Structures are given as structure tokens and as C-alpha cells.
């Protein structure tokens, strides 16, 4: 499946979904003017990818700032991942945040509440180890 890359702008994050490698990355800031315009294609591609059977998936998220709409969009993505995991796929989410960013840590903890089958890791220290 074709790789999806979207360059970051001041208001939207960088997207790099390497579907064949099973590594999805989302990083930067997210407060798009129109959530549907930005997240619509991202959701479409992700839904298509998860609908097909495949190997393990790793989702790296490294956000510095995001607004409420983006939070809801993230919860929708997590729900899609959780369903895939319930379907038997190995899914790992790495929630990365900068050293000492307690707010981002708590947001990550909040998001992980609803995830039972997805492995959710809180990774402090930014992009260390991300490929």
C-alpha cells in the first residue's frame, strides 16, 4: 500500500505512514483550521490499511501541542487501532513527549484508558529511538 506522507505546516502535524513497513508516524503541532480537511484523508488511508490483514503495527505519536478537535480525532484513531487489535493484529502506540512535559504525559495516560488490546507506551525524552 502506498506510503502516505504529509509535510508539516504551522498548524498541522507531519504525517509519515509507512504502511508496508508497518510504522506510522504523526508529529508536530495540530490545530488545523478545518479538522475534516486535514484528518479526512488520514482516516481514509488508515481505515483502508487496517481493513486488510497484515503484520504488526507501530504508531509513533510525538505531538507538542494539539487542540480539542485533534484530541477527538486522536481518540477516533485509537478506537480504530483498538478494533484492529481486538481483531488479532499486534498494535503498539508509542506516545512520545519531551522531558518534563507533564501535560503531554497526562494526556497520554488519559488516552490509554480506553485501550485494552493496544500496547500503549509512554515514552519520555522526545524522538530518541524513533526510526
Amino acid at each position: 500500500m502506498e506510503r502516505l506522507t504529509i509535510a508539516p505546516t504551522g498548524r498541522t502535524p507531519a504525517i509519515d505512514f509507512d504502511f508496508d513497513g508497518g510504522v506510522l508516524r504523526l508529529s508536530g503541532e495540530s490545530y488545523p483550521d478545518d479538522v475534516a480537511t486535514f484528518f479526512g484523508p488520514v482516516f481514509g488511508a488508515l481505515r483502508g490499511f487496517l481493513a486488510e490483514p497484515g503484520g504488526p503495527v507501530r504508531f509513533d505519536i510525538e505531538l507538542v501541542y494539539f487542540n480539542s478537535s485533534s484530541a477527538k480525532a486522536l481518540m477516533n484513531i485509537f478506537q480504530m487501532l483498538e478494533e484492529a487489535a481486538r481483531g488479532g493484529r499486534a498494535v503498539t502506540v508509542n506516545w512520545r513527549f519531551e522531558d518534563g512535559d507533564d501535560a503531554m504525559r497526562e494526556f497520554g495516560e488519559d488516552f490509554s484508558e480506553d485501550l485494552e488490546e493496544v500496547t500503549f507506551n509512554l515514552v519520555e525524552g522526545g524522538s530518541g529511538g524513533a526510526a
Partner: protein
Amino acid sequence: MSFNLFDAEEKAIERAKALGERIALDAPECSAGFNELLEAFTRSYREQRRLVRFSDRLQAQLATLNQELERRRQEAETALARLQEAQEVLVQSEKLASLGALVAGVAHEINTPVGIAVSCASHLADATGKLKALTEQGGLGRNDFNRYLATATDTTALILANCERAAQLINSFKQVAVDRASAERRSFALDAYIQETLVSLQPRLRQGNHAVSVDCPPGLTVDGFPGALSQILTNLVMNSLQHGFEPGHEGRIAITVTQPDPDTVVLAYADDGRGIPAEIMPKVFDPFFTTRRGEGGSGLGLHVVHNLVVGPLKGGITVGGAPGQGALFTITFPRVAPGA
């Protein structure tokens, strides 16, 4: 009594769970569908809680940032006000310093005629003492008396001429100094006033053998602020001496006054020094801009010039010339200052 923001939702979930148990017993074929709806509602309730918490947190961050922003804005404004005060103080002290230089220049100028007068007077006193002694001894001859008369005639003429010169210098300086200190408005003959200002600069100009030529329409009377004009000329000359002329260069300064129309005066000040590099030309009037920091340059000389031209003179100043061909300052101002 504890308050729960989501009390209604939680009670609804409890009731739905109880209902689910009844449905499992009474209508088991509906049970799976019902549980799915219940799960969706429960998840939506958790997401709502999360979003509210999330949104509160963002707004708290925003409020903190706003406070921080306001605090910094106030800090910046305070700093700016302090800086402006300090700048004002420095500009004033620069004006005082150049008044001091003017006093020193005039003192030096006056020293020469006063010195000559003193030595002539002392010579005359000696000759008179000798004449008195000869008279008392009864040995005064015709030749002695004639010699004394010649000496007295020469010395008194010199004393008179030099005292007059000193008085003239003091007069012209007095006017310049009073104008400088008072910033009072009056009518004055431009040509003579330029010359009077240059007198106080003569010692500095003579040191390097620099020459100033003035070409001003005779009889041109300006109604305005002579003190400002005097300060402007002094600072321009000091600028030529400090920056324009290389050591050993015998500089030429030309001050040319023209009247494009009866109500406008254009004073062109040109030197034949090094000139001002094009890249620093836009900055020469900025406060504290100097190419001689650490060598006594305050960076205020031309700033004061600019202030006085646009301030009291209500005019404009441009800088020109080319590197190697000297600097040119052109000051245009109304002959009669507005706001009389």
C-alpha cells in the same frame, strides 16, 4: 454533598445496565445490540469527560501564557521608558559636553589677545618704573623721555587692540552661549552668526590646519533658534574633525547657504574628508550609532544634529557624498520658523 459534573450520565449508564440485565432475561435476541449501544454511550461519556478535562487544561495554559505575555509586555514597556529616559539624559549631556568644548575653544581664543595685553602692560609698567626712577634721581634726559613715549604709544596701541579683540570674542561667544543655553527664538543675521560660531571652533580647526569657507547671502536674516543652529554647526565640524579628516590631512570645509525661494533656507555643509560609506549612511543619525565606539565616540553627535533640525528648525536633513570625496549634509529649513 459531593458534586459530580457527570452525575446524570453516570446514573443513565447505571439505569441502562439494569435495563440490559432485564433485556438479557426477557428479550435475549436484543441483548447484543443493546450492549453495543450501551458500550458506545459509555465510551462517548468517557471521551466527553476527557475532552472537558483536556479543554480546561488548554484554557488554563492559555490564561497562564496570557498573563506571562502581559507581564513581559509591561516589562518591555518599562524597559523602553527607562531606555528613552537614559537616551534623553545622554543627549542632554552630549549637548552640555559640546557647550563645554565651545567654552574651552573660546577661552583658548581669548587667551591670545589677553596674553599679549598682559605682557604689553607689564612692559609698559617696567618702562614707567624706570622713567619714575630716572625722574627721582634727576637724571631724566630727552632721549629717555622720547624712548618712553614711543614704548607707551606702541604698548597702549597693542593693549587697546588686543583688549578690543578679546571684548569682541567675548561678545560673540556670549551671544552663542546664551542662545545655546536659552533656546530662545530671535531674528539674526545668518552670515555673521555662522562666523561667530566658527570662532569658538578656531583652535580645533587651526590645530590640523583646516580651513572653513562660508558662502552666505549677505543680509539674509533668519527668524528662529540660533542656539540650535550653532549647535548643529559645531557638531558637524566636530564630526568632520573626528571622522572625516585623516591625521595629517589639511581639511577643507565649505558651508554654502542658498535660498531656493524667499521663505526657504538651504545650508549645505561639505567636507573633503573620507566620506561616509554607503552602507552606514542610513544609520548616521541613529542614536548611539558610532564607528568609534571605545575611542570616545558617543554616537550622539549627528543624532543631536538631526533632532535639532527636525525639532527647533522644523526642517529636514539629508546625508550624501561618496567615499573618498567627502561628506555632504544638506539642511533645509524655513527662514521664519513656524509656530511664532
